């Protein structure tokens, strides 16, 4: 929450937040309790359950399959953050500040954000198919052996390209919003002082963008960590398990094999990892801002 001037203590404000609490709690608490319930029990069907304690948690934490999915997930998130954040900032810096071109850029760049996620996957599928896709056929035509349904490396490259296509705009729009908030007087002062382009970036633009960039990295981290639909449509987790990220693995266990106990335990561990990493990042980044 932003630090506004002193807020009035008022316990009746609870009435104002009550509808939100009710609706979100209905959607969050009941399903979460269901998951917790499953995570400590074993079932053989017919709604008969046995208490199993922390057995599933131990099993998941020691399973090689979970470790591999987690490693792939961390690798994927790391790669897309390393590409999207610098690229988004570079685009925002180079964008026109005002006028019709700025509007046109914003509208065009926001487009990928509003396309349903499975359509994004289907679109890249059509683009990358080795026989009939523009990208797949094009790469093979220039002599690069490319088939994302068979080569793990090609599958990864396609997946990363798709995510960069889909989400770099979000970082760019946020960085642009941060840049727009810098008054012209700052630039004029820098010009009078004869500051170089890199000095302007380091001492004026970067500090002003820090807050929105924190949000951008946090959002990209959370969303890439939960990514499911796009890789599911594009590669289905394959070839083999090469692109089976955490969510895909979880859905395979829960809905594919109907192993409710392990799936529930995995869900909770997954959720806690996301929460913990987000919380650490946010605390570190906002520590010296004083709110």
């Amino acid at each position, binding site marked *: 929450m932003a630090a506004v001037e002193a807020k009035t203590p008022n316990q009746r404000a609870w009435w104002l937040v009550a509808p939100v609490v009710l609706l979100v709690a209905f959607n*969050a608490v009941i399903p979460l309790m269901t998951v917790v319930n499953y995570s400590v029990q074993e079932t053989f069907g017919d709604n008969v359950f046995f208490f199993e304690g922390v057995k599933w948690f131990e099993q998941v934490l020691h399973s090689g399959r979970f470790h591999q999915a987690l490693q792939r997930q961390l690798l994927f998130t790391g790669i897309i953050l390393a590409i999207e954040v610098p690229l988004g900032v570079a685009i925002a810096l180079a964008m026109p500040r005002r006028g019709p071109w700025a*509007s046109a850029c914003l509208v*065009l*760049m926001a487009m990928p954000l*509003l396309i349903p996620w499975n359509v994004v996957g*289907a679109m890249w599928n059509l*683009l990358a198919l080795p026989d009939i896709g523009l990208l797949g056929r094009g790469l093979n035509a220039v002599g690069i052996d490319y088939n994302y349904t068979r080569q793990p490396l090609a599958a990864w490259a396609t997946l990363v390209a798709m995510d960069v296509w889909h989400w770099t705009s979000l970082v760019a729009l946020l960085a642009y*919003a941060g840049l727009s908030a810098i008054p012209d007087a700052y630039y004029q002062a820098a010009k009078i002082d004869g500051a170089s382009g890199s000095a302007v970036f380091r001492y004026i633009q970067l500090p002003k963008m820090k807050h929105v960039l924190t949000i951008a990295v946090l959002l990209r981290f959370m969303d890439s960590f939960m990514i499911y639909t796009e890789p599911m449509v594009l590669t289905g987790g394959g070839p083999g398990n090469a692109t089976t990220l955490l969510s895909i693995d*979880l859905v395979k266990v829960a809905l594919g094999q109907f192993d409710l106990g392990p799936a529930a335990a995995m869900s909770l561990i997954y959720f806690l990892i996301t*929460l913990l990493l987000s919380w650490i990042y946010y605390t570190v980044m906002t520590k010296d801002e004083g709110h």
Partner: protein
Amino acid sequence: MRRVAWLVPALYILFLLVPIYWLLNMSFKNTNEILGSFTLWPREFTLANYRKIFTDPTWYGGYLNSLAYVVMNTVTSVAVALPAAYAFSRYRFLGDKHLFFWLLTNRMAPPAVFALPFFQLYSAIGLFDTRLAVALAHCLFNIPLAVWILEGFMSGVPKELDETAFIDGYPFWRFFVRIFVPTIGSGIGVTAFFCFMFSWVELLLAKTLTAVEAKPIAATMTRTASTSGYELGLLAAAGALTIIPGAVVIYFVRNYIAKGFALGRV
């Protein structure tokens, strides 16, 4: 250096347009041309794929379902988030900070975690396969988002506005509806945009909670992709049509997007 700077966004936008161009290109071809040849432009230009979507109820019904639950969700999220965001921006009350953080944690919960329990919950209360079920389920991440954005906008409104109104004898709700809500009109627009966006693009929960009656367009597409296999033109046309509502919404809020990102801390 400044002279070539425009190249960066220009190349990026070009990159953004390539897959969209290819999708449109395929949507105007027939299946034979897609599978049999490789053409950068449809040789036998056809609207058959689009005609099929607009005449077959399972296809256009999917669009209506999606639009219906997205609108229901957006209206609900904004309506309940408005008073809550006001409370967070103006008052201090027991557990306010914890409550705010708890709300945000729901934005961080992977939908895959909730898919199965959601199915059971909505089946148990008899809402499975209704538009209402999807609209309610999407509240999980859209209400926290709406509260977060609106609270940012409201904190930018000086408190003197409220105090003056209360001194003038306005009852709370009249002040809120007649004066305060119109003051943050642009904030409400931006919030509605983001709620629309995240509800429109989500598929996992929408698919889990529907079967026949309320099936979203995106689910119709995935089922077509897996069953009939090679109707790629139809798939491309359906995909191209899902871009339109988003493009319309972006056009209306184009001047607020950047501002909304900054103020709303989305």
